[in-house]
């Protein structure tokens, strides 16, 4: 029997507000444990929550960017359960009236667009972090994370393969990053993802029994866990077995899932409206204002880059993954009408620099004027490609300006034939065999000779001119010989 995989994802995103969702504590990552706490986020007796307006604004932004119907009536509920990372033993969340309903995220599967429906987007507070001592003697709690505004984005079970899940996550993350409301950094826990997966016989409508997967630490982890789980379920079902509803954890090291709790142990969260937070209505104008202020979203940017800058879909898809790079790209294109050259530089040299130095583009001391200047120097044969790359790396490392690095290094390209003749002479002298090969008709030998000249000139020689000079010189030699 053939099976169809059905996947739904629950994504939690930390909103990048300066202060927590219901108190004034900082949301900075990496401070001393419990340094960023107050009576409110510690849930001390008598304290009361007050909604952070920015968190709500960000939530509405995401809802609108995901094509949700933004809900005008804002209400918070309490989700009751006991756990030591939750100081009130209830979480302030949104139950039946989330900020956003019925949105979607488009993904590209084999060059076809597929729409994954987003069921709901709701705002809630994060819990603290438990650290268990290795010897089991104690568990410690860090409440710094407790109370940070968290957005839960729940998809419909429209995802049919681990690869689609991966694409969905990639696109969702990109949209949220474009809005500037979250870092979406899975390593720092600012994006977390749980998955529901079930199998059903192909062609059947009724959903199979689902398994909830937790503890994935990267998008790849999500894909791997789903792949493992799809295989496991298929094996069970093929043998005539059945799946029991449960929560399973992904073990990254062993690359497998294992059971955490069964449905019987599932909580009754006893949701009810939080009486400490008065429900209120968002003005229609407020929502319209946010909608108007939304930035260009990745999908639209992609289409525009294809149309406006002549990039291919594949190329455009590379650059739109980095919204800050797009800013630099467009700044450069505005002053230098060679978008493809700029594109090549950004996704080539600069991307390799960023990967090498583990920096993002906003951390580089690079502006559009400097980059365009550099590209122009190459076009004008003032710098070789190699030298330009070297100059750029030096400039970025030392936070210096391009011209002073060029001067310092003395790397301006030598394009004057007269200046190059001496080096050519030396290269020919050192490589008589290649000269003979060339003269015997091996055309390729000239490239070797050009390379030798480049080497001797420490990359400064203009290879085009070098080739001309060599050709001229060899023809001459030939003449002399006869």
């Amino acid at each position, binding site marked *: 029997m053939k099976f169809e995989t059905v996947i739904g994802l629950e994504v939690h995103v930390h909103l990048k507000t300066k202060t927590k969702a219901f108190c004034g504590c900082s949301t900075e990552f990496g401070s001393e444990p419990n340094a960023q706490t107050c*009576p409110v986020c*510690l*849930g*001390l*007796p*008598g*304290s*009361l*929550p*007050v*909604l952070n307006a920015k968190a709500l604004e960000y939530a509405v932004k995401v809802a609108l960017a995901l094509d949700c119907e933004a809900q005008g009536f804002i209400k918070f509920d*309490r989700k*009751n359960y*006991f756990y*030591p990372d939750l*100081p*009130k*033993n*209830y979480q302030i969340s949104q139950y039946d009236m989330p900020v956003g309903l019925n949105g979607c995220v488009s993904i590209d599967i084999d060059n076809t667009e597929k729409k994954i429906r987003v069921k709901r987007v709701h705002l809630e507070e994060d819990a603290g972090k438990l650290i268990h001592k290795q010897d089991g003697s104690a*568990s410690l*709690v860090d409440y710094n994370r407790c109370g940070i505004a968290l957005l839960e984005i729940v998809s419909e079970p429209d995802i049919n393969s681990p690869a689609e899940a991966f694409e969905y996550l990639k696109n969702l993350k990109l949209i949220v990053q474009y809005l500037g409301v979250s870092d979406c950094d899975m390593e720092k826990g600012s994006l977390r993802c749980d998955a529901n997966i079930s199998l059903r016989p192909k062609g059947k409508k009724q959903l199979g029994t689902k398994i909830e997967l937790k503890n994935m630490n990267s998008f790849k982890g999500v894909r791997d866990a789903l792949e493992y789980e799809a295989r496991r379920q298929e094996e069970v079902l093929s043998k005539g077995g059945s799946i029991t509803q449960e929560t399973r954890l992904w073990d990254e090291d062993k690359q497998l899932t294992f059971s955490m709790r069964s449905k019987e142990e599932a909580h*009754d969260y*006893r*949701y*009810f409206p939080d*009486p*400490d*937070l*008065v429900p209120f209505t968002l003005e229609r104008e407020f929502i319209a204002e946010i909608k108007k202020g939304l930035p260009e979203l990745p999908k639209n940017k992609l289409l525009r880059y294809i149309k406006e800058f002549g990039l291919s879909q594949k190329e455009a898809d590379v650059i739109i993954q980095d919204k800050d790079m797009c800013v630099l790209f467009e700044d450069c294109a505005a002053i230098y009408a060679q978008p493809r050259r700029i594109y090549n530089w950004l996704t080539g040299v600069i991307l390799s620099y960023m990967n090498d130095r583990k920096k993002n583009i906003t951390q580089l001391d690079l502006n559009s004027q400097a980059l365009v200047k550099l590209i122009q120097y190459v076009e004008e044969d003032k710098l070789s490609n190699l030298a330009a790359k070297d100059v750029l790396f030096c400039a970025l490392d030392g936070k210096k300006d391009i011209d002073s690095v060029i001067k310092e290094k003395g790397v301006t390209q030598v394009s004057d034939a007269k200046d190059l003749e001496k080096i050519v002479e030396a290269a020919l002298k050192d490589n008589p065999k290649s000269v003979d090969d060339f003269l015997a008709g091996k055309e390729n030998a000239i490239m070797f000779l050009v390379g030798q000249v480049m080497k001797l000139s420490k990359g400064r020689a203009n290879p085009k001119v070098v080739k001309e000079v060599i050709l001229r010189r060899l023809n001459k030699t030939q003449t002399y010989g006869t």
Partner: protein
Amino acid sequence: MLNSKTAHELLDLIKAGKASQDKILSDLKSRIDKVEPKVKAYAHLPKETDYVKQDSLLKGIPIAIKDNICTKGQLATCASRILENFSAPYDATVIEKLKEKGALIFGKTNMDEFAFGSSCETSCYGPTRNPWDLKRVPGGSSGGSAAAVAADEAIWALGSDTGGSIRQPASLCAVVGLKPTYGRVSRYGLIAFASSLDQIGPITKDVHDAALLLNVIAGYDKKDSTCADIPAVDYTSCFTKDLKGVKIAIPKEYFIGGLDKEVEESVKQAKAVLGKLGATFKEVSLPHTKYAVSVYYIIATAEASSNLARFDGVQYGFRGKPSASDKSGQMISMYKQTRGKGFGLEAKRRIILGTYVLSSGYYDAYYLRALKVRTLIKNDFDKVFKDFDCVLTPTSPTAAFKIGERLEDPLSMYLSDIYTISANLAGIPAISLPCGFTKDKLPIGLQLLSAPFKEEDLFKVSYAFEQNTPWHKMKPDLKV
């Protein structure tokens, strides 16, 4: 003795150079030394007291605070073992306001555990006694505050009222107790019982003091989302001599079975006094009154079950020792031991009831329906206040009952709040005033209710009534 004076009398005496903070405090302390062993009004007495600067509005006049209100650096136990060692690291907004105006925070008063009760008997410190009859309860849950004020162990006090917890003990102890409109006073720093019903309010020796105290504590607070951004008036400026033009409604549902004859008689006489001052009366109907107690015990316990979930032994308060034989594991066992040993019987009863009504499958039938009926109760009052300034009722159906008399019968205990609960459900202000005594010399209270944020109407009628009756001047004889 200065401790028997009201705050506004003391302010006059200080102004005239006839009283000082030192003298007030020493009189108060010597009274407490004599009387407290009998009354047991306080949960915690201060070891030493700060002095407050004399150029302030309240000139360092001491105030007793119910033990569910956070005062920085002092215990705030809610009279529960589970918070036995909890010292509040911050001041409630009302305490900030009091300190700012120069009040001296003096002592934390006894209460029913987590304000669950109408008799002050469920305290982990043992019961407070009614100064008018030490064998009887002072009412609750703010029984400590009411008893302290009645026994001149405090000049004035703060209480909290979720279903009558200020008014009922005020009534049983012959003092004045006001529950302000929901949202009139910040709840920040009040350890929550039922968040949608709780309000902090004054318990005082007369109406003037209640108005003075409300002046200090009322007003918007950005730390409490449920606090209303509506300016408060000067409540001491609304006192008048007569009540011409004042229209008072008498709800017929409040004068039926269960109402003690002597209480009914006193309220009738009070009505006559108000009538002489020019007020007019008309019988009205508040048809949903009969549902108030049921609705209250669903909503209040539901909220309480969630509000009290935080007392788990993890961060603060009492922590039970996990039992090694408990198969549910260390963590669950710690929760069980902490909450099992930390909470008293009534707290457990309400947590279980509240958990039940919120449970999946019961929510719609209980909690959701209760919310709907709550709206109907509020609508009843809205309708009446279109035509009337106040509603007049007894505060409590009976005078003070004996200690132990109702403890084993929660339903009869719950019915002591039958007349006070509706004000909390409707969110409206209500005041209790002394209006007489039974043959056994037990105080009887009169309740006045008004439209939301119309506390001035209550003060106007109450002040005129008080000026024409002797009841608030009566003092219990504690034989010292």
